[in-house]
């Protein structure tokens, strides 16, 4: 039955929200600068498509770069942390501390160190998105089923074999969960970077458009920019979900 499909439910809730949106505007007589109607946002999307399209790619590149570096470095840091309790006790508090420092405080410092441009934005994206990968993957690597660890010990395997044949595949679902969270954070990181350091460099990403549209009081265009930013986030999460499906669908409990 069609109503059993997930997309069908999403479509129903989406359509209901648009109806509620229109009703709110007309019933409460909300001014356009407060909440533009969906068709006005769509109109802004069409009118500013060139600007938005360019900004989309300007933001996409540092966001992807930061996320890719997060996914690689995050996995490597997790592998290192899982090697011994001593390494975890020594390094994990500092990794956590880095995550706890508000990114807005770090942003100007990063701009001083790395300049006002791509590198700073990608670094901010990395800093905001690497922690979920590290926390999840490390947890997966160190919580491997004890019986499976003992099983491999009876085969007298090396540490490397234990890691390669057991701990890494066991931690894979944990890594992918972390990556899913990071993918949704990467867009926030890239936008924060652009808002605070990117605009000065002349990079005209979505962050720059937010500043411009806000200054010009172009509210439908501002909503259109938010829509495009959401789209990037959705693409990221969608790609991670696809990887998740490709790698786990045959054996993992989450697909049954």
């Amino acid at each position, binding site marked *: 039955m069609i109503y059993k499909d997930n997309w069908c439910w999403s479509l129903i809730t989406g359509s209901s929200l648009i109806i509620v949106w229109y009703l709110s505007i007309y019933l409460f007589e909300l001014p356009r600068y407060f909440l533009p109607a969906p068709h006005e946002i769509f109109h802004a999307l069409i009118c500013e498509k060139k600007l938005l399209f360019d900004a989309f790619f300007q933001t996409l590149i540092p966001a992807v770069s930061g996320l890719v570096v997060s996914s690689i470095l995050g996995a490597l840091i997790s592998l290192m942390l899982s090697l011994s309790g001593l390494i975890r006790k020594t390094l994990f508090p500092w990794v956590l501390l880095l995550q706890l420092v508000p990114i807005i405080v770090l942003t100007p410092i990063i701009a001083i160190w790395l300049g006002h441009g791509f590198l700073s934005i990608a670094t901010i994206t990395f800093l905001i998105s690497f922690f979920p990968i590290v926390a999840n993957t490390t947890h997966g690597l160190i919580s491997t089923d004890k019986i*499976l660890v003992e099983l491999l010990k*009876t085969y007298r395997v090396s540490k490397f074999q234990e890691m390669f044949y057991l701990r890494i595949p066991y931690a894979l679902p944990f890594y992918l969960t972390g990556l899913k969270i990071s993918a949704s954070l990467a867009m926030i990181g890239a936008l924060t970077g652009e808002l605070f350091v990117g605009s000065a460099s002349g990079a005209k990403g979505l962050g720059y458009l937010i500043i411009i549209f806000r200054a010009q009081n172009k509210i439908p265009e501002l909503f259109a920019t938010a829509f495009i930013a959401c789209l990037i986030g959705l693409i990221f999460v969608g790609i991670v979900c696809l990887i998740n499906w490709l790698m786990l669908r*045959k054996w993992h409990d989450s697909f049954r």
Partner: protein
Amino acid sequence: MSLVQLYSIAKNFDENRSVLTDINFELNEHEIVSIIGPSGCGKTTLLKIIAGLVKQTSGEVILNKDEISFVFQDAALLPWLTVRKNIELPLTLAKFDENQIDLTVSELLELVNLSDVSNYYPWQLSGGMKMRVSIARSLTKSPQIMLLDEPFGSLDVMTRNKLNEDFLRLHEKQKWSAFFVTHSITEAVFLSSRIVVLAKKPATFVKVINVNLPFQRTEKLREQPEYLKLVAEVSHELRISNNDI
């Protein structure tokens, strides 16, 4: 010839917690010895000491053969590997030649009647099938000594009885020796040439019962008076050795 010799094995987890004390025993060629005792008495710990997974506090374990295999209570299959890949695992880890791996695994799959499901993942198997994969995996390197920790404990009676017969069939073909930990008296009598009864806290071997039943054992044996008499004897020994339970 003794394959495993245990001399005065003792294990304390801390000063106040002695699990095993003064265990002396010899496992001979081609025999299956069941170890039976109450829950938590240290049966698994003893098997792990023999396998080298746990270090004994005192005493000595002498193994006269190198190739040991351990079968866990849980089938302990890697969920991301197919049945075939799970069975291959010990050979892959030992870097065996691929042709040899293929040949050995195909033979084992036939031996445990799982050729049809070789590409299935563990979640697609029943409890009994999982255990058969686990046993097939333990046989890949032609072990001389098998250590089995309640391998059929979580299965229903019908499946368990069937696997008991399969187990004896494999033993007859491959002639390994085994320590078989179980809670089931009937299973112990059906499978073993000797049964060792453990007393509780700290556990020690209190009685060794010889099972003088015919070598060829089938389901019909379970109705024979000599089998039932042995079941009663083991049950009695277990009760008087652990009169606090």
